[in-house]
């Protein structure tokens, strides 16, 4: 309902009418869509067909995919340039939820509350993961600027066989859907590590890069009830007016916990924790670096995005287990609002539209097609892209997708406990400082408290 409050709902309907008229003209319209590089390269035709067949896109609208840069930062820069220069193509984009907000702020993308039909807006409002949709909404006006295409959030992957060999029973304890605490988990990890002939007990990503700031550190910190800016409500600003809370107990504790995992360093509050089962290599790892040992059978636990489930399942089949990311502090005990409990950092992509496009009507049609459940399931099947709406997780189709179908339950739990990165205009400046300090702390360059104190002052500087 908030979306509809945008005020131009009627216009949306009108647009729909015009659109039909256009289609009646018999002229085929080609819509260019700035899309994922790999997928556009490998499956452009399939997806285009699916849009028509599964999404019911009219035949006179053709979709042409234009591959964006694989690196999300470069893609952002590219779209920024194109929009800045008033380019009319691509007509629509696939944008990282991590930076849609900035395009909104700059007024560079099409207000979809004006373009889409009420019906569509309602669907999004009611059926989509709201935490995810939020990253495509202008916090000030509440207007919608992006339609979620697929969310992306991590789970904890693990080797069921090894854990079971160490005497644990994941099935019985419902690890797949019931989050466990870091303490419990770390003991499982440490035990299994001692027991199994593997190099690593746990692999994750902790390099100095965006992924640490947005995700791995964010998750651990949130699961301890910590937050960068005082809680969920302040994620998207307002910059300068929100508290900076990195130098707080939960955040420091979460870093100490990572230190314990890596160096088996002693901390008072972490006495009961297992430690020393992971490697300082995580300090230089991003996704693929940390995934490789896991798929090669050299690690027990592994934190990664859903794509990793595909990769690992093909190696281990049923021996692969997933669980929501463990937590340290339950939601109700969390120091900062909206944190605590299992937390998965939120990634994923939205569909946005180019306001300069000559084919906005056709764009709306394509968006409509992409919102069809059949199409979303098709994406889950072919690309492993999770549907943006919760209910599809329970669908039969979803369950039949191999191998993802086996893990939909974990994914659904994780999807309901996501934490977006605090994207604002200054996020990129902040994230590099965050990653740097988080890395330094876990590298024992300085104490976690000192690292966070430094980070605090840096962030204060940035927020002004």
């Amino acid at each position, binding site marked *: 309902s908030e979306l509809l409050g945008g005020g131009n709902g009627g216009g949306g309907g009108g647009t729909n009418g015009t659109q039909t008229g256009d289609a009646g003209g018999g002229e085929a319209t080609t819509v260019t869509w700035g899309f994922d*590089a790999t997928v556009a390269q490998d499956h452009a035709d399939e997806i285009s067909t699916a849009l028509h067949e599964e999404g019911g896109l009219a035949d006179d609208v053709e979709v042409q995919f*234009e591959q964006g*840069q694989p*690196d999300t930062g470069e893609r952002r820069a590219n779209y920024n*340039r*194109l929009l800045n220069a008033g*380019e009319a193509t691509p007509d629509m984009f696939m944008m990282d939820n991590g930076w849609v907000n900035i395009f909104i702020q700059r007024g560079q993308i099409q207000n979809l509350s004006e373009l889409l039909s009420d019906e569509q807006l309602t669907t999004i409002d009611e059926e989509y993961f709201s935490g995810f949709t939020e990253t495509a909404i202008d916090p000030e006006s509440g207007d919608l600027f992006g339609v979620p295409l697929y969310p992306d959030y991590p789970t904890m992957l693990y080797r069921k066989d090894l854990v079971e060999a160490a005497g644990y029973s994941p099935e019985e304890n419902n690890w797949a859907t019931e989050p466990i605490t870091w303490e419990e988990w770390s003991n499982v990890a440490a035990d299994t590590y001692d027991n199994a002939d593997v190099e690593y007990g746990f692999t994750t990503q902790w390099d100095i890069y965006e992924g640490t700031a947005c995700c791995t550190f964010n998750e651990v910190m949130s699961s301890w009830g910590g937050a960068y800016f005082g809680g969920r409500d302040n994620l998207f600003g307002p910059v300068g007016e929100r508290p900076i809370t990195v130098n707080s107990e939960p955040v420091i504790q979460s870093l100490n916990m990572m230190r314990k995992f890596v160096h088996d360093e002693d901390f008072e509050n972490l006495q009961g924790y297992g430690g020393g089962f992971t490697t300082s290599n995580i300090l230089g790892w991003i996704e693929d670096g940390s995934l490789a040992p896991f798929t090669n059978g050299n690690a027990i636990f592994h934190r990664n995005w859903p794509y990793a489930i595909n990769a690992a399942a093909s190696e281990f089949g049923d021996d692969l287990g997933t669980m929501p990311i463990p937590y340290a502090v339950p939601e109700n005990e969390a120091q900062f609002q909206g944190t605590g409990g299992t937390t998965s950092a939120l990634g994923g992509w939205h569909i946005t539209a180019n306001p300069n496009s000559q084919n906005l009507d056709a764009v709306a049609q394509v968006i409509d097609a992409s919102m069809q459940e059949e199409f979303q399931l098709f994406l889950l099947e072919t690309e492993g892209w999770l549907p943006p709406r919760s209910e599809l997780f329970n669908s039969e189709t979803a369950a039949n997708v191999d191998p993802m179908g086996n893990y939909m339950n974990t994914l659904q739990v994780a999807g309901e406990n996501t934490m977006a990165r605090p994207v604002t205009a200054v996020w990129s400046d902040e994230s590099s400082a965050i990653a740097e300090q988080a890395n330094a702390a876990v590298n024992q360059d300085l104490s976690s408290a000192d690292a966070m104190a430094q980070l605090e002052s840096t962030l204060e500087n940035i927020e002004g």
Partner: protein
Amino acid sequence: MATPDRRDDRVEPDETEGGPLERWTQRAMQNPERVYRALFYVVMIFFMVTTLFPFYWLLVLALTPQSRLLQGSFLPQIDLFGAAAEFPLPVAKGFNPAAFVSVFEQVPFHLFMLNSFALAVTTTVIVLVIASLAGYAFGRLDFPGRGALMLGILAISYFPPAAFVIPLFEAFTGNVPITIPFTEIPLFTPPRLLNTPGSMVIPFSALFLPLSIFILTTFYAQIPDGLEDAARVEGTTRIGALFRVIIPLSAPGVATAAILTFIAVYNEYFFSTIMATSFAAGNWSPLVGGILSYQTQYTTQFNLMAAASIVGVLPVVLLVVVAQERIVSGLTAGALKE
């Protein structure tokens, strides 16, 4: 080493006493040229090893299957008389030459190569022509403002490429007119060049021009006046003398400027990736764009990138081998008596 040497001694007992090393030293002292030669080969091999080792590493990466790439040591354990030891050289983990095929299957890599090749050739030609004229002016003519102009041209290269890109990008979209800086007064609307070779060749030419100008200036300045004089008396214009005598005689310099420009453009990434708005070969995305296509959001196919870069480097190697034929010494030998 030691054993066969002693046998040598037995075979030729009349040779001077002492081991081969001593004999070598003996001869070396008589003929320092030998020492020099030996030293030379040592240095040469050192350079070869240090420059080629990373390529070997690249090959190891290319041949290792993607799945095993980021896990496990590249230094195999070898059995050394019972004791396990680490082999000091990285060796491919597995043998997967198919990477060199996948490179072309996953993306039309040859098209990216062609793009870069075409861009590089065009730019090189333009740069050489313009820089030759400028090099002639700077190297062989005396005129007021020479030093200042050279410094000015050099100053272009002080700027990070980012300083040029936004205004150029805007201009090349052809959407908005070019305005006089610091004002809103429009001058003209340039043609749309995005995703065409023009949007790349033009900035490349400008950005790689200073180096070539400086190289050619130096080399043209070294050609004795006498030869230009001779050509002019024979009936060439000054430009004729430039192309018929000075450039051929500066071949090492020209070839070097050409190689440097070619390679720089062939591997250029910053501008081309901006002027080609997507990583599509059809948009004139360059070689590096192709190589980067083996990255996806979360994974990097290092083996394919390695294979692709080996493939991509080959034309350059050929070019260098061919072009260096021009880098021959003694071009002016026998020309002058002075």
